[in-house]
């Protein structure tokens, strides 16, 4: 990580993770930390085994850490975005056990043992996921901030298979807000991939 004279929140959390504070707020150092630094009240760091995009990570986390913060600040998978942090925008959408959920309202500890898939896990090597390719083709984003969430949400939508018409796709994508207003193009991209998959069957 490049040096930063003005430490931001991520630096802070990493500093704590490295043992910078007396309290074991969170650590990637392994389960020894909590024992070496006995807690005085609630909030002991706990071992959390996360499986993200097929990779296992043995972490020791403050139970307060959301899945979103664990992905971004601990595992440095910054593709998943934080918009509202309150379940109101969908920017943090990831797939847990293949189902789309809001990572901001999910505790990292509560998904231990369940496979997590993020936007970083959609492509296969250099081959984009069909939805990623369709988003580019249909210009389904402008600033791109909502896009990782839109993509994971669309993966969930196609698997759930409850949407056929444009209206249904719009409704089923309503958990993902886009300030740039790329909605019509998102619908077009999702529909193209949905129809291609249907025709292939």
């Amino acid at each position, binding site marked *: 990580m490049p040096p930063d004279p003005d430490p931001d929140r991520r630096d802070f959390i990493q500093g704590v993770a490295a043992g910078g504070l007396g309290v074991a707020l969170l650590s990637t150092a392994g389960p020894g930390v909590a024992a070496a630094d006995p807690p005085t009240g609630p*909030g002991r760091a706990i071992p959390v085994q996360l499986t993200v995009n097929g990779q296992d990570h043995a972490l020791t986390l403050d139970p307060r850490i959301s899945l979103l913060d664990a992905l971004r600040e601990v595992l440095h998978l910054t593709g998943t975005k934080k918009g509202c942090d309150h379940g109101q925008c969908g920017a943090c959408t990831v797939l847990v056990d293949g189902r789309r959920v*809001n990572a901001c*309202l999910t505790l990292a500890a*509560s998904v231990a043992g369940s496979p997590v898939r993020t936007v970083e896990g959609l492509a296969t090597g250099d081959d984009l996921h069909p939805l990623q390719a369709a988003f580019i083709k249909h210009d389904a984003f402008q600033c791109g901030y909502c896009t990782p969430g839109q993509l994971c949400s669309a993966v969930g939508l196609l698997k759930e298979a409850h949407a056929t018409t444009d209206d249904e796709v719009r409704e089923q994508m309503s*958990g993902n807000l886009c300030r740039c207003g790329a909605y019509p193009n998102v619908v077009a991209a999702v529909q193209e991939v949905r129809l291609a998959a249907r025709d292939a069957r």
Partner: protein
Amino acid sequence: MNPFDYARAAGAAAAVTQVAASPRAKFLAGGTTLIDLMKLHVETPDTLVDIGRLPLDKVEAVAGGGLAVGANVRNSDLAYHDAVLARFPVLSEALLSGASPQLRNAATVGGNLLQRTRCPYFRDGVSPCNKRAPGSGCAALGGHNRGNAVLGGSESCIATSASDMCVAMAVLNVTIKTQGPKGERAIPFADFYLVPGETPERETVLDHGELIVGVEWPALPAGAKSHYLKVRDRASYQFALASAAVVLEVAGGVVTTARVALGGVATKPWRVPDAEKLLVGRKPTAEAFAAAAEVATKGAVPRTFNGFKVALVRRVIVRALETVAAG
């Protein structure tokens, strides 16, 4: 968020013991209400007992055509369950009108039953709010109360019950099954929620540490149809301004069964027995529906900015009844 200990429940009985042991311990299910409110410092548990993986996740038929649903069944799974779609459309429609697909994938039946109000002064963590900080007053009474309740309120609290699912469950005559420190019990839906009165911090009859294990309800009368109608500020991903769940059975040209419950306008899921009685024995006409809607809102107390809800919910009731009557 304040620090807390996290533990996965080993079983229902163990979870009850763990939460009952500490006055500030809470169950964690989907987390979509609890984690949100913990980030706002509105909820400050010192222990979370994660019940999300307990096998309370079945939807089972009960004798006579009813359903028994585990507390951990996710809102999306219940909404799309074949039996619910076929026989209890009001519940499917209510669930699918709530939140977003992502939230519904996480949200559970138990958590939805106990979701908290969206009153902005409750959520802001600082305003006077008798529900959050008993005795501190109610900022909504003289404040921005456009979303607040017109039915079931008191001078202590006019917080709206936010759930869509619960409005449907009110007309399904659901029973809530629990397991608590004092044993098991089955609580009729009508007895489960409390109006705020002078103790708005107490929302249900549950004891501390009492776990909801599931809900159960009987079949609807053979010829009955059901429907949920929700009106809100935008087309999706928004709480109700006014909603109605209705069950209607018409035989020989007259109404033989009528059940109506309201959402978005009351302090708890709001059945309107007087309106139901008025409908039974009458022809299912626009006039009868309008009369029922009038009766349903009797005693409504509009506040500065929410008076529109009285007229709005009447129209919602009429339209919901017209929709089921039409077939």
